[in-house]
Each structure stands twice: as structure tokens, then as C-alpha cells.
């Protein structure tokens, strides 16, 4: 159990700077998710914490100790890989106890620890099997068991659920989260799936192109995204980002439609902004924005309406059962935050709300 501090870490691959100076503080016992699109550097950062990649610049501390030069085994960490990386010629029990065997632990100790971990993960009936005789979810649990047995200071997860089917992913998510709450060990979890990050993490680090875009709790990121990237990345379906200009009492879209808002008073008229509206904030309204429907996607609990406001694509998530077809028209208003961003800097300007229409 330890806190992890990442100080101005830089990673170069030859002439390419993959990680451009990152600072992250992870508290003892926290579950931190590193999220971002492919190639953003999250896995590289995780591997640098593990010791599988060299650190070009900056320092990484685990439990207050700088680990830059230390081998993985000296860092007291355990890692769960995306493709499990189980030893195929060893039984499950041997897979889980390999690290203890190498450390020279007694047979009794090994047996006790392995059975302990197996009980937590419901692996007791499989201890004598080989990895090839297990399903994907079982193999992933063995990989976690192998990590638990090491009793490390930090757990490192490298997209562990990416290779599982959708339903299994959902149930394993809950399992991992409850495991973390039970064990209380610091965990760093890399994923490209923002839903995984939102549901499991205490704190999320959103990364893109080797830099940090924003750090915060899941709801912080959801309610107050710091820039356009985070706004579009967090939340499913993605936030609608509509170009507009500030006008008196609201914003005006390119086709002339005006959305009355409170909170735009501080901005000069005519200033270009990007209005970010989450699909689920739209509600049907008699006099609202006109949406031309392209398709409706009913999921049972909600209906996703994909359409256009003017010539801009828009997605609305409505609670009602809407059976619209191509060409139908809906009127909607956002009942919730309308996030305003600066088109040039991508930074957040502020939050506005739809003015009540009389």
C-alpha cells in the first residue's frame, strides 16, 4: 500500500517524444484510471511505473522512494496484462505461486496464500487446471490471483477487460471494483473505455498525445470538462459540440436559430463559442431547437435520436419512446448545463443554462 508520485516524467523513443512531461499524484489506496485514445501514452506510463520501460526524464516514486533505476521485482508491484500472460505449462496454483517459489517461500506459506487468493476470486475448483482449460474470464481471474498473491504496494492493470465479451466485461468490472474496496491496495488502471474508468475509478487521468488533459473524479470530469477533448471523450453518447456565436441573451447558431441562455452575459456579442450539450439533457419542448431526425435507436430504457440542427449533426438521448423516421422533426431544449468552449484554445469558458421560455 503506497502512494505513487509521477514527477515531470518524459519518455522518448529515439527522436520521438511519446510522453511530454507528466505530473500525477496518486494517493495511498486510490483507484486511478488512465484513460485516453490509442497511442496517447497511457500504457507507456503504466509500463514506466512497472519498470518495463526506461524513464527518459523525471522521476517516479512508489511509497516515497524513487524507483527510476529499480528492476520490476524490486518495486513491489504486480501487473495484470491485457492478454493475461499466464504460464501455459503450469497449473493455476503454480501460476499464482511462481513469484513466491522464486522468493524461496515455504510450501506451507505458498499453499496458504494461494488458497486465500483463490477463495477471494472463486478459483478454488480450478487450482489444478492448466490455463488452456479455462475460459477467458477465468484466466483473467487467475492473472489477478497471481497479482494478489504478491501482496504488492501497487496493482497495475493494463486494459485487462479488453479481451472479454461485453457481458463478461460488465460483471468483471464490478468484481474488480469490489476487490479493490476489499483489499484497499493502490491501483493504476489503464483503459481506452471511458465507461470502465467512470464506473471504477476514484480519480481519472485523461490523456491525449502524451499529455494530461484533465485530472479529476469521474463526476468532476463529467460535469466540468476542462476542454473540448475531455468534453467529447467522457460520456456516452458523446457530448454534442455545436458552433455558435454569443448574442444578446443566448447563442445563435449558424442557421439563425437562437438558444436563449442565462450565463452568457460576460461574453461579448458575436464572440464565437462552441456550445457543448450532452445528449441526455435534451427534453422535448414546444418551442425549442428544431431537430431533423435521421434515425432513432431504441434501447428499451431510452431512445437515441440521431439528427441534425441545421446542418450540424446532433444526438439526443430521450427518455420517451420516440418512433421518428428520416425527415421527421422534433423540438428539443437542453434542460441542464450548456458548456461553453473557446473554439481556438479548446478551453472551457463557462457553463450556461437554458433560459426558461415564457
Amino acid at each position: 500500500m503506497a502512494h505513487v508520485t509521477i514527477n515531470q516524467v518524459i519518455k522518448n523513443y529515439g527522436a520521438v517524444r511519446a510522453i511530454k512531461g507528466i505530473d500525477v499524484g496518486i494517493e495511498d489506496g486510490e483507484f486511478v484510471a488512465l484513460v485516453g485514445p490509442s497511442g496517447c501514452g497511457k500504457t507507456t506510463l503504466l509500463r514506466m511505473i512497472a519498470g518495463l520501460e526506461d524513464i527518459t526524464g523525471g522521476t517516479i516514486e512508489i511509497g516515497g522512494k524513487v524507483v527510476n533505476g529499480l528492476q520490476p521485482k524490486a518495486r513491489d508491484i504486480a501487473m495484470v496484462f491485457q492478454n493475461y500472460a499466464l504460464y501455459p505449462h503450469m497449473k493455476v496454483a503454480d501460476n499464482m505461486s511462481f513469484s513466491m517459489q522464486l522468493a524461496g517461500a515455504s510450501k506451507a506459506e505458498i499453499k496458504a496464500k494461494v488458497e486465500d487468493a483463490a477463495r477471494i476470486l472463486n478459483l478454488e475448483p480450478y487450482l489444478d487446471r492448466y490455463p488452456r482449460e479455462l475460459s477467458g474470464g477465468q484466466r483473467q481471474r487467475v492473472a489477478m490471483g497471481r497479482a494478489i498473491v504478491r501482496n504488492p504496494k501497487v496493482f497495475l492493470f493494463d486494459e485487462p477487460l479488453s479481451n472479454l465479451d461485453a457481458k463478461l466485461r460488465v460483471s468483471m468490472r464490478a468484481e474488480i471494483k469490489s476487490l479493490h474496496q476489499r483489499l484497499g491496495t493502490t491501483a493504476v488502471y489503464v483503459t481506452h473505455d471511458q465507461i470502465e474508468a467512470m464506473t471504477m475509478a476514484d480519480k481519472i487521468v485523461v490523456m491525449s498525445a502524451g499529455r494530461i488533459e484533465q485530472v479529476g473524479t469521474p463526476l468532476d470530469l463529467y460535469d466540468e470538462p476542462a476542454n473540448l477533448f475531455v468534453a467529447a471523450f467522457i460520456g456516452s453518447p458523446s457530448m454534442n459540440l455545436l458552433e455558435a456565436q454569443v448574442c444578446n441573451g443566448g447563442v445563435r447558431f449558424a442557421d439563425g436559430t437562437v438558444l436563449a441562455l442565462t450565463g452568457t452575459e460576460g461574453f461579448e456579442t458575436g464572440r464565437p463559442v462552441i456550445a457543448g450539450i450532452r445528449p441526455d439533457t435534451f427534453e422535448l419542448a414546444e418551442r425549442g431547437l428544431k431537430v431533423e431526425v435521421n434515425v432513432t435507436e431504441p434501447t428499451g430504457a431510452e431512445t437515441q435520436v440521431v439528427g441534425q440542427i441545421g446542418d450540424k449533426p446532433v444526438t439526443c438521448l430521450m427518455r420517451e419512446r420516440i418512433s421518428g423516421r428520416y425527415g421527421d422533426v422534433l423540438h428539443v431544449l437542453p434542460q441542464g448545463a450548456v458548456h461553453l468552449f473557446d473554439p481556438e484554445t479548446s478551453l472551457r469558458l463557462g457553463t450556461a443554462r437554458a433560459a426558461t421560455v415564457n
Partner: protein
Amino acid sequence: MTDMTTDITAARTVIDRGTLRERIEEPLMRGGQIGLLLLLALVFFLPVLGTLLTAVRTIPDITQNGAWALPSSYEWGNLGTAFIEMLPYLKASVIITLPSVAGTLLVSMMAGYALSRMRFQGRIWMFLVIVSLSFVPIHTQLIPVFRLMSDLGLHDTFISQIIVHIMRQIPFAVLIMTNFFNTVPGELREAGRIDGASEWTIFRRIYVPVARPALSALIVLEFTWIWNDLLWGLVLTQGAGKKPVTVGILSFEGEYEIAWNMVASGAVVAAIPTLAVFLAFQKHFIRGMTMGSVKG
């Protein structure tokens, strides 16, 4: 109306010709393919059959009835006699082949692991150079190696043959092991590092066991090639003591005549160990094919 009926009959004729062609052409093609394969099998098997038959004939039988006649009498004793006479050569072959195979495997496994999993300068060049050594024709090596062994004082020894065999098999074996280790996911090594294993432990306890199918295939191939080698056995030895079994068969050739039935018996006796090795190892490299350590 007439147009319609001619259309219909035309259509019917087209369909008929189609099935007729299918009915004759397809079986003919299949028959032809099977016939060709049987012919090929026969071509490959006939020499073996000929050897087996010749082994149990008598010399007068061979001289009178020619090479391909069926045995007039079956002399099974020939095989026994051949075995006893070739015993010293069989022993020599074992002393030469087993260390050669073991040495080749040891070197190629370690080289394969290093070339596949470890990152160092010149890795790719080294791999290319090692593999390209196999392109050197054996004929160009015979005299220089003979002279080298003589200069080293190793003429007519077992060790010289062992060294040469290992040297000649390394390119192929390293190629096989490197390519095999390339298919084993690198995460296994990383998981091993995190578990606290040193490089040698990772190699010995993780990658070597995982390599069992490739190792089994290599054992069979290397054993066969080294056991069946004739050239080096001839070139590097002088007296009868260090000659392998392949050269031993030649001892049945006298100055004026060749005892073909004994030569054939010798060949049969010499072939049995390679057959045994193949049968012993084939189930290993088939069983090893199902691996479930990683996804897919």
C-alpha cells in the same frame, strides 16, 4: 409460342450439358489426382521396399534373379548378422549423435531466446549472419575442416565429428528456435520479470518448457540428419573405431564384390534408431500445439 418452347428446350439442353460435364469431368479429375498421388507414393516407397527385400535374400539369389525379383528364400538371419557386425559402429553413432543433438539444442535455444526476446545492438545482423551460414555448401568445407581438425590434433576422434555436426546444424536450429520464440508473447517474459525471475530463470523455467513442440520437432530432425551423415564420418575418421554406422555399412563392400544383401541389412539396422526417435517424439510436438496461456 414457338419462341417460348425453343427457349425452354434450349435451357434444358444447357442444364443437361452442365450436369453431364460435372458427372464425367469431376470423378475423372479426382481419379487422376488420386492416381498421381499413388504413383508418387510408390516412387518414394519402392526403394525402401527394394532394400527390405534385398536384405533378406541370398547373394546367389541376387546375382541370378536380378535386383528387383522377389526373394527365393527369406534369410531373416541376415538382419541379425548385420546387427552384430555393426554393433561397434552403432555404438560410435550413438556417441557422436547424442552429444551433437544435445549441443545443437542447447546453443540454438539460448541463441533463439536472445535473438527473439532480448534487445541489443546488431541483433538483426547477427540473426541474418547465423542463418546465412547454412548457405555455405558442404563441399567447400570438407577440406578446410579436415585440415583444421588435423592441425588441432583431433583427427579420427569423436569430438571432431561432434563439433562439426553442431556447427553445421546451428543455422537451421537457430532459425527454428528464434522464429518459434517470436510467436510466444513477450508478456510472458514481462510477467516473469515482475514475478522476480532473472533472465536465466525466465529462459529455463518459462520459455524452454513452452518450447516443447519446437524442441521435439528439432530433436527428430537433428537426430535424423546427424545419424544419417556419411560425408563427415568418412572425411574425419581413419580406423574403424570412430566410424559411425553409415560408414560402417560400407564395410560390407569388399574389394572385388559387394555383399548387397548385407549392405541392405546394414541399412535397415541403421535406419531403426531414427524411426524409433520419430515415433517417440511425434506425440510431444502434436500435444504441445494446444496452448492456452494467452487469449487466442
